[in-house]
């Protein structure tokens, strides 16, 4: 695909721009009438390495980072007009081979976390299954000029012409964005890393694998402290694994981690150096009469997020999202059904392994709305105050620029409306696992396979609907 080619998609004029090295960049425009406007980036060539594996906004929302199965990190920057353009792309992890254990280590980026701002550069942690890396993304706009022994093209000068010494001078140049690895935190995990989380003290972070949680200092790469260890002496006694771990947003001593048995534990690092004993255990009693073979599998927590206020915990299991008040351990304060209609389909979902999909969940900036993904490229939003919920679809067919997303409805049995979708026609290969919400505004990023969709609430008061209709190419 050559750069800047025009083509027509469903009757609307689109501009496709090939960006430097990996993703195609597409913006569409359409009349609008529902709450979400659209921009999107996607890749027309469906290379498995391009499948997006994590999405994360930075603290200000000015930057959005995605990681993919090919070990790349792409950072988007929000332009003054409001849309996100590619800012930097770099290869964070490479495939490796552990010769001692005869194991291949995938380059897939499991998680990205931004560090709070230090200086004009930006810092983020990225991790694959084994190794966490700290990256610095910085801008350079000056270049030194003037050699003594060579001219600017690099040819050697005639030495007889050198009569004085020349000190190089810095001159402005085109902005160059560089990503450089600052630290590599390796060799601390025997199992696959599923989470990383930066502590509010800004000097430590945690990394969690299936059985252990380690605490690192951001400046120290050769030592980490094991704070949680679930590994039984005999691996046959293994009854649960850690699925996610996260630090509290304000209290540097609190961390939450969830397990495959559907529990979430809160640990207080002040009490002990080892957090094997939890301070609180969030678990909802299951009605024994409703127990089935799948009960434990669907109750496994696939994501945990503290609310921005730090008061609530959001957990996602296979069928629901739950909001827990940190002060109440025995049951969630709110439970939302994500796709209750799958209750009857668990058997086939088990056979296709879909039942083990790990959906993420996220809060909006004010903790009033919850978002999480589902199948068929659908994602769900729940308004906590009004208890209204909506199902939206992120797919190329419906994502036309400035189009407003139409709510979708999945029905069990007979269709009531033309637009309803029956459960049997859902495509379980199309799933939205990774989502992110801008920390301050109603802008959301949705990763569906190798496509990244960025939607914006059309009601935000900064004039986004007055955008130029076709935008120019991002910087090469």
């Amino acid at each position, binding site marked *: 695909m050559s750069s800047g080619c025009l083509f027509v998609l469903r009757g609307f004029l689109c501009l496709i721009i090939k960006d430097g090295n990996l993703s195609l960049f597409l913006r569409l425009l359409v009349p609008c009438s529902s709450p979400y406007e659209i921009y999107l980036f996607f890749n027309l060539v469906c290379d498995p390495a391009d499948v997006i594996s994590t999405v994360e906004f930075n603290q200000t929302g000015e930057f959005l980072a995605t990681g993919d199965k090919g070990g790349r990190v792409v950072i988007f920057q929000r332009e003054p007009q409001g849309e996100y353009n590619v800012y930097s792309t770099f290869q964070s992890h490479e495939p490796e081979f552990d010769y001692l254990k005869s194991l291949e280590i995938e380059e897939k980026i499991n998680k990205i976390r931004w560090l*709070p*701002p*230090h*200086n*004009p*550069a930006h*810092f983020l942690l990225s991790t694959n299954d084994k190794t966490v890396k700290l990256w*610095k993304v*910085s801008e*350079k706009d*000056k270049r*030194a000029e003037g*050699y*003594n*022994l*060579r001219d600017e093209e690099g040819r050697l000068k*005639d*030495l*007889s*012409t*050198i*009569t*004085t*010494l*020349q*000190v*190089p*001078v*810095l001159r402005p140049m085109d902005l160059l964005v560089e990503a450089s690895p*600052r630290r590599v935190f390796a060799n601390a995990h025997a199992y696959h890393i599923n989470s990383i989380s930066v502590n*509010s*003290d*800004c*000097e430590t972070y945690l990394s969690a694998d299936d059985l252990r949680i380690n605490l690192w200092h951001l*400046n120290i790469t050769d030592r980490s402290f094991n704070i949680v260890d679930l590994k039984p002496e005999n691996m046959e006694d293994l009854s649960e694994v850690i699925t996610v771990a996260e630090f509290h947003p*304000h*209290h*540097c*001593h609190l961390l939450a981690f969830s397990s495959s048995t559907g529990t979430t534990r809160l640990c207080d*690092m*002040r*009490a*002990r*150096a080892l957090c094997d004993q939890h301070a609180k255990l969030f678990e909802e009693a299951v009605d024994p009469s409703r127990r089935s073979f799948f009960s434990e599998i669907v109750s496994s927590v696939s994501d945990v997020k503290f609310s921005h206020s730090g008061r609530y915990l959001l957990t996602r299991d296979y069928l629901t999202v739950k909001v827990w008040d940190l002060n109440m351990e025995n049951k969630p304060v709110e439970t939302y059904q994500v796709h209750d209609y799958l209750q009857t389909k668990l058997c086939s979902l088990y056979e296709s392994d879909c039942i083990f999909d790990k959906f993420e969940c996220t809060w909006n900036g004010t903790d009033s709305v919850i978002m999480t993904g589902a199948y068929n490229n659908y994602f769900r939003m729940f308004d906590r105050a009004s208890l209204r919920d909506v199902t939206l679809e992120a797919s190329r067919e419906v994502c036309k620029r400035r189009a407003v997303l139409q709510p979708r409805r999945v029905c069990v049995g007979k269709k009531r409306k033309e637009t309803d979708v029956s459960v049997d026609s859902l495509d379980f290969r199309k799933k939205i696992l990774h989502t992110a919400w801008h920390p301050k505004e109603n802008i959301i990023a949705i990763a569906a396979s190798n496509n990244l969709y960025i939607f914006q609430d059309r009601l935000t008061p900064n004039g986004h609907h007055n955008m130029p209709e076709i935008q120019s190419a991002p910087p090469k």
Partner: protein
Amino acid sequence: MGTGTGGDDSLYPIAVLIDELRNEDVQLRLNSIKKLSTIALALGVERTRTELLPFLTDTIYDEDEVLLALAEQLGSFTVLVGGPEFVHCLLPPLESLATVEETVVRDKAVESLRKISQEHSPVDLEVHFVPLVKRLASGDWFTSRTSACGLFGVCYPRVSSTVKAEIRQHFRTLCSDDTPMVRRAASSKLGEFAKVLELDYVKSDIIPLFTALASDEQDSVRLLAVEAGVSIAALLPQEDLEDLVMPTLRQAAEDKSWRVRYMVADKFSELQKAVGPEITKNDLVPAFQNLLKDCEAEVRTAAANKVKGEVLPEDSRETIIMTHILPCVKELVSDTNQHVKSALASVIMGLSTILGKDNTVEHLLPLFLVQLKDEYPEVRLNIISNLDCVNEVIGIRQLSQSLLPAIVELAEDAKWRVRLAIIEYMPLLAGQLGVEFFDEKLNSLCMAWLIDHVYAIREAATCNLMKLVEKFGAEWAQNTIVPKVLGMANDSNYLHRMTTLFCINALSEVCGQEITTKHMLPVVLKMSTDQVANVRFNVARCLQKIGPVLDSSALQAEVKPVLEKLATDQDMDVKYFALEAISGMYLFNLPTYIFSETFSFSSILFFFFSFSLSP
């Protein structure tokens, strides 16, 4: 190197250095930065100020190691920019280095800034340096604000009282900064800043800041305040301590976070010194008892390290330890955590010198015995390694009954590192227990280590034999260990046969010429026909090693033929070491053959051929 007509040859090396400041190779850039003074010298003070420094100010994109070198260089650049009069020219590059994200670079930049602050005249300090500190202190990024924290202390004493007030205000602001990083930096510099403040301001300014930081919501800030508390306490008159510092310190000792309590335990000796004997007795001793009983093992470990209470008041030290500390120590001996016990084991013996003979026998001895039987080897080892303290007070015999089983068990521990550690204490034990006890109980252990299946143990065992012989003398060696060592020469395992050779290597010198020639040499020579090449070439090496101990007749008559034979061995390595031995020994005996210090293999060969043709 060109020799042009108009070019100046002396410029060339400098030109290279300047160009390499921006070479793609980090190492070359680093080299250039390290020779920055040479460049500056060549450019002269004027151009250094107007061209070199502006360039350096903007080169903060470089690798950390280059920036670190740059920050360090600039600290001693005053002369190169024209002396103290112009020292402020160094501030811009250091200011930009003080804002980079890498902590080590920032710290070095701050260190250099502190250094050059002393070279500023009082006027320059207020005109140039203080504004820089203020800029850093109100910077947008936490990196610059953390750097500012380290600079207040150096300028405060030398500025006017209005500026002093501003500096205090800036420091106050940073102590309540939004980011924990800055509060940590402020907390860690609080003590230092307090030292340069007038006592009144310490009371009116520093104390509230200290109290606030010590109750910060982040425990990483609170724990740093403990250290500041120690410095502040040392500054205040005794009568103010109780009101101003003690409430906060007491609160820190009972903090909810174990990390803060750990810090109190860790700084306990300094704390005692700072608050003086009276408060120590009334306040700190009970606090210390609690730390020894803390629910977190890390805290107990840190506290256990301090049970000796070095800074307790001389007159009441013994009573305090007896009545307050000892009961806790007794509990710690059976702690559930091995690190606590092992920390205790490393200091508990030191208590005996304080408590004297009677108390030691009555109270401490039982504890030593319990620890000697502890399930963790590290605990037992720590007791054994400190035996000398007890020996001075009650004599080691008191312990020997329990000591022996402990030693035997450690000597046979499944972990080779544990065995290695106990071997290292053998000479010490031997010295204290005496030769009879040793022969009776420990000798067999020392011999058993020689046939350990781990090489490191066998190696340590040979070394141990040497030290024992140094202690007990050659005669003892001849009677007890030499026969056993030599006996191993007939072992069916070649590794054991080699151990014989290694032992001979170690022992020949301490045993002296007679034993070596009479007893050891025949065995070595006999082994030259061993079927295993490794043994044979070790024979060659061994002969080289013991050569200096032997007399020349034995060398000529016995050693030489054997080495010559080995030099024609089929095995390459045997040949090599035989030749090396021959050359080495002739260097010793026949001064006419002089080898260069680094002779090569071919030169040895050459020598060998001429040697074998000559007789």
